[in-house]
């Protein structure tokens, strides 16, 4: 693959042809905040948290291919305001009650809220209180905590060769659909499927292992989100 350079936060970095801005930044040790993106999946462009400035215009880093003419800024006050606001919107769209959630400390949404200094709920709450589906023996889905990142949809198709999840409805009524009307238990989802563990929040969770690692000893209790990528810089 052809190599080229582009300007990222004021310095020249190398990228491979076909890489997105986000992938190229990862390679260069620059963390661009993201939520719906997952390195093992095709990008979805759902959350827009990875919005960056390309030659002064906002672009979505996980779906925009890097190019040699680009001057990219990823960490400006303006962008970080956008990101915090989007995260706040995701919090009011659902019902994210961190203190009792088994994902707390491992939750990417929570970790981003900390990173961007979300303090108080400022927006009207929209939660519709959808029921929890615990019909599957090993996995449950709680749509109160869903941010519609589409990771489970993509993982089921791309990694598991199934099509357990999909998006249905439109606008604020959009929700994760299952390929069975009789609940998660009647779908082809297996405990070891990529889709079963790829959720960034506590929406799609394995049963019985939620507290194997205690609060306080979890991924983002030890280091803020993104530090695994930034570390490479040294």
């Amino acid at each position, binding site marked *: 693959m052809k190599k080229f350079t582009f300007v990222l936060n004021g310095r020249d970095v190398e990228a491979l042809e076909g890489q997105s801005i986000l992938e190229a930044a990862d390679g260069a040790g620059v963390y661009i905040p993201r939520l719906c993106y997952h390195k093992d999946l095709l990008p979805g462009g759902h959350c*827009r948290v990875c919005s960056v400035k390309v030659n002064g215009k906002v672009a979505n880093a996980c779906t925009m291919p890097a190019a040699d003419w680009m001057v990219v800024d990823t960490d400006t006050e303006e962008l970080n305001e956008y990101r915090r*606001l989007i995260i706040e*919107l995701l919090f009011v769209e659902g019902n994210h009650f961190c203190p009792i959630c088994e994902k707390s400390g491992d939750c990417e949404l929570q970790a981003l809220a900390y990173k961007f200094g979300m303090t108080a709920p*400022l*927006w009207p709450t*929209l939660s519709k209180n959808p029921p929890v589906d615990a019909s599957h023996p090993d996995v449950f889905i709680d749509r109160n905590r869903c941010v519609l990142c589409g990771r489970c949809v993509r993982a089921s198709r791309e990694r598991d060769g199934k099509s357990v999840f999909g998006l249905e409805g439109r*606008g604020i009524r*959009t929700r994760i659909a299952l390929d069975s009307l009789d609940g998660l238990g009647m779908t082809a989802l297996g405990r070891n499927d990529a889709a079963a563990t790829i959720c960034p929040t506590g929406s799609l969770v394995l049963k019985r292992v939620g507290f194997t690692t205690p609060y306080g000893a979890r991924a983002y209790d030890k280091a803020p989100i993104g530090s695994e990528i930034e570390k490479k810089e040294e």
Partner: protein
Amino acid sequence: MVCNADEGEPGTFKDRVVFTEVPDLLFEGMTVAGYAVGASEGIVYLRAEYEYLLPGLLEVLDRRRRLGLLGRNICGKEGFDFDVRIQMGAGSYVCGEESSLLESAEGRRGAPRTRPPFPVTRGYRNQPTALNNAETLCCAARILAKGADWFAAQGTRDSTGTKLLSVSGDCARPGTYEVEFGLSVNKLLALVGADEAAAVQVGGPSGTCVAPKDFGRKICYEDLSTGGSVMVFGPGRDMLEVVRDFTEFFAEESCGWCAPCRVGTEVLLRMLDEIRDGRGTQDHLYRMMQLGDTVKACSRCGLGQTAVNPFLTTLRNMRDIYTERLSAHEYVPRLDLKKAVAFSEELAGHRSEVKEE
């Protein structure tokens, strides 16, 4: 070669005039465009609400086939093969966005695609696709007939030619008008008989709401850009209610794919309701502006990027419609305490003391 005939912007009905009055001009434009880009397949994506126009359009296509203007070796020219089929839409506003239109035309959920790649690289069924508006294709046919100089002599330097406007609302002569680019709002208002206009929505809800002080502005790409919808509001109209309705429209039509548009439009609508009901504060306006900027900057397609325009443009141009309804209090709680304790009261079987304001 795809013709976007999904005119769905509220207040626009100019393409309908093309389909009913001069459908041959449109198909001629498509054929010419097909020849230019080397396409042999043409698709008209017709908005669901225009299904009643379908039989008439199919007749026109049949007649053009009989006359050798569609099909194989068009006009006797060896190898010039082009035909048109009509694909009905299913009633979604976002399918007027080019990549959603293609998704829908292929039989999938009408939601935008990731761009790039743009349709000219990978469009309908992954083939390179030229996708244009019905009006543009009509212009192409007329330019070939009358010459580029004739076209370029009209309009302004950066917006050559003419524009079809569908004018509706509080005016004596609503309808579709063909005007030269560069026409001022004032002159348009005189043309349609709207002497008392209090506001004009140029470009539909996703466009700009223009206040009387700006009626000297010109309709063209370098000033007031428009897809053709012009709505006139008289002095009796409640503009906050108008903004609210437009915002509700976008929240309803959001495809739900990306977070800023899906949640942002709905939150904006709730906050507009709070202001309407006298429960808004100065802080509301500040936050709604932040919200608007974010949704505009970060949304995935044109719907979200413009959905906040009704609010943002009126906040700039006619701030009074908001400030006159704000509560005198610095803070109005969203929680209605009396309502919140009502259920507990019922359970407990006795009443709580809730202090009045």
